[in-house]
């Protein structure tokens, strides 16, 4: 009844439910397996910015929710645009390098702006329940978590590329989007423990260290982004 050797597109047409189950199971497995890589890739952005938020599980849970939601938007956005352009299947190195360069530059800018905006972060629990907003005007600013989440979602890390290539083999854009969604869920499970950073009592020292670390990481992303846009080999040893 089931022919495992059938190409995925034909499988999707002739055995739609089984194909869907198999491919979304694959997406979940891929997401779970890619979790450590996602943490490693997102860690330099996520951990310093989490450390600037005030103490408590709730602020951290809120931060992570916004971050992950924005990351999902980044995934979906990329999937839709790339599917429309027909680029999802190939993810050619040159445009991928260009896109990564642009994303790195944007990440650097947002990190620097975030580090600047976090100077008024309140270490102790306070009445202000908002996450750190980028920009001077708190009412119109964008939550830093959202900006960083979106950009990390657009950052074409290797597991994301693998998921993209696999998703492109499915029959329709809707299927590819659902594949990405399930893959995203698999990777996001690994981010849940970061809520535990909320138990670290914040003081001015920790917030200052986190802001300084953001600046250093931003400088690194800036140099890498420029190198990628110039087409330079990042490492040639």
């Amino acid at each position, binding site marked *: 009844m089931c022919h495992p050797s059938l190409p995925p597109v034909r499988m999707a047409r002739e055995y739609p439910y089984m194909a869907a189950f198999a491919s979304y199971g694959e997406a979940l497995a891929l997401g779970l397996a890619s979790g*450590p890589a996602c943490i*490693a*890739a997102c*860690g*330099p952005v996520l*951990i*310093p910015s989490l450390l600037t938020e005030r103490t408590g599980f709730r602020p951290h849970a809120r931060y992570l929710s916004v971050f992950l939601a924005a990351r999902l938007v980044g995934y979906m956005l990329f999937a839709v645009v790339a599917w429309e352009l027909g680029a999802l299947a190939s993810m050619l190195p040159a445009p991928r390098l260009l896109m990564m360069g642009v994303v790195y530059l944007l990440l650097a800018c947002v990190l620097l702006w975030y580090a600047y905006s976090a100077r008024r972060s309140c270490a102790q629990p306070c009445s202000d329940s908002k996450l750190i907003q980028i920009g001077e005007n708190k009412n119109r600013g964008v939550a830093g978590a959202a900006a960083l989440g979106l950009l990390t979602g657009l950052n074409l890390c290797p597991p994301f590329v693998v998921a993209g290539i696999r998703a492109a083999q499915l029959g329709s854009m809707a299927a590819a989007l659902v594949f990405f969604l399930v893959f995203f869920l698999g990777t996001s499970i690994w981010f849940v423990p970061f809520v535990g950073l909320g138990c670290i009592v914040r003081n001015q*020292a920790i917030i*200052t*260290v*986190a*802001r*300084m*670390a953001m*600046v*250093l*990481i931003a400088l*690194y992303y800036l*140099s890498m982004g420029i*190198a990628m846009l110039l087409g*330079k*080999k*990042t*490492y*040639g*040893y």
Partner: protein
Amino acid sequence: MATDVRTLTLTRPAPRGILRSLLLTLPIFIWSLLMMGFRPGAKFDPVSSIAAIITALFMTVLFFMMMRTNSTYRWRRIFFVSLGILFPIGFIHNLYVMRGSMGIPIEEMIAGRTPFCFMPIPMLILPAAFTRTVIFPGSIGSASHGIAVMVGLWLALTLVMGKGWCSYACFFGGIEEGVAAIPPRARIRKLDPRWRYVPWAVLLAMVLLSLALFEPVYCMWLCPFKAVSEYVAARNTVGLVQNVIFVLLFAGLVIMLPFLTKKRTQCSWFCPFGAFQSIFNKISIFEMRIDKERCKPCLLCQNACPNLSLSKESIARGETLLSCMKCGACVDACLRQAVVWHIKGTQIAWKPERARLMFLYAAWAMAIMFGGSIIAGGLATILHFVV
């Protein structure tokens, strides 16, 4: 609060008697001979033997002076600066003998022959925990520059000294300590205390980036001491940029700023390994404390500290900051003997000399074992050229 030190009653401890000082130094003398290889059945070559004798005597005399004068900092500094000068001499000479240059060629990295120094240790932990992979092009085994050997040494010395590593073991810190000692007074005196946070930020950033990029990012991009040890030979623009960065950092943080501030600026404002070692001060049994009854906050200790490990708030609490390197500068600077060596759990300022002696025996023994062998190696290199 301005204090006229001329009106203070000088309460520096009287010098210890010569005989008593000699008796206290005797164990160190025996230990020096043992560590320098003078034991039954040991083989000698003339140059190495002369270097070993000089080193053993050097370390013994310094310890004697610590006992005789009841001060620590300036004698320890002589050892530490000597270590900072002689390590590059011996190390760079060995590099030229082995491969003809300070640049590490890719062949050596592939062969796993890159000497391992302690600086990458914090960056190796997470990748090793996640993937059981050591992100350093060395060899793990028991070769003299192997990763296991250096990590084993680091573990043992850290158990004994905590962040005292930065005063008794680090073979890089002596360079800037020597430079800081040159000018009679500091040109830049007002130092923003927030600079103290930078090493922690560098540590956090380097640990996270090293995990993401799976390489020791600090070593590749930021370590200023590549100027006096070794570096990856640049073969493209990015490699060239990396090498320019370390030269600039060395010139700025290790030469210029210590000269202008008379502080160990690389150690206190940048070094992520120092921040990492600070964590071990939490478990170290030895510390510096301030007897609040004797202290009249004149801030002489704060001014004397080369590592900015004393602030007004910490002095008011009667303690140093976590970054304290146990160099003894604050104790020696205090005219009221309010700053004292202390063993955790005991009464502050009750027989502080006992705490000092216990710490110094342990730390100096380690210094002779580790730093002494490096000093002897550097001396032997010089003697080979001279003799």
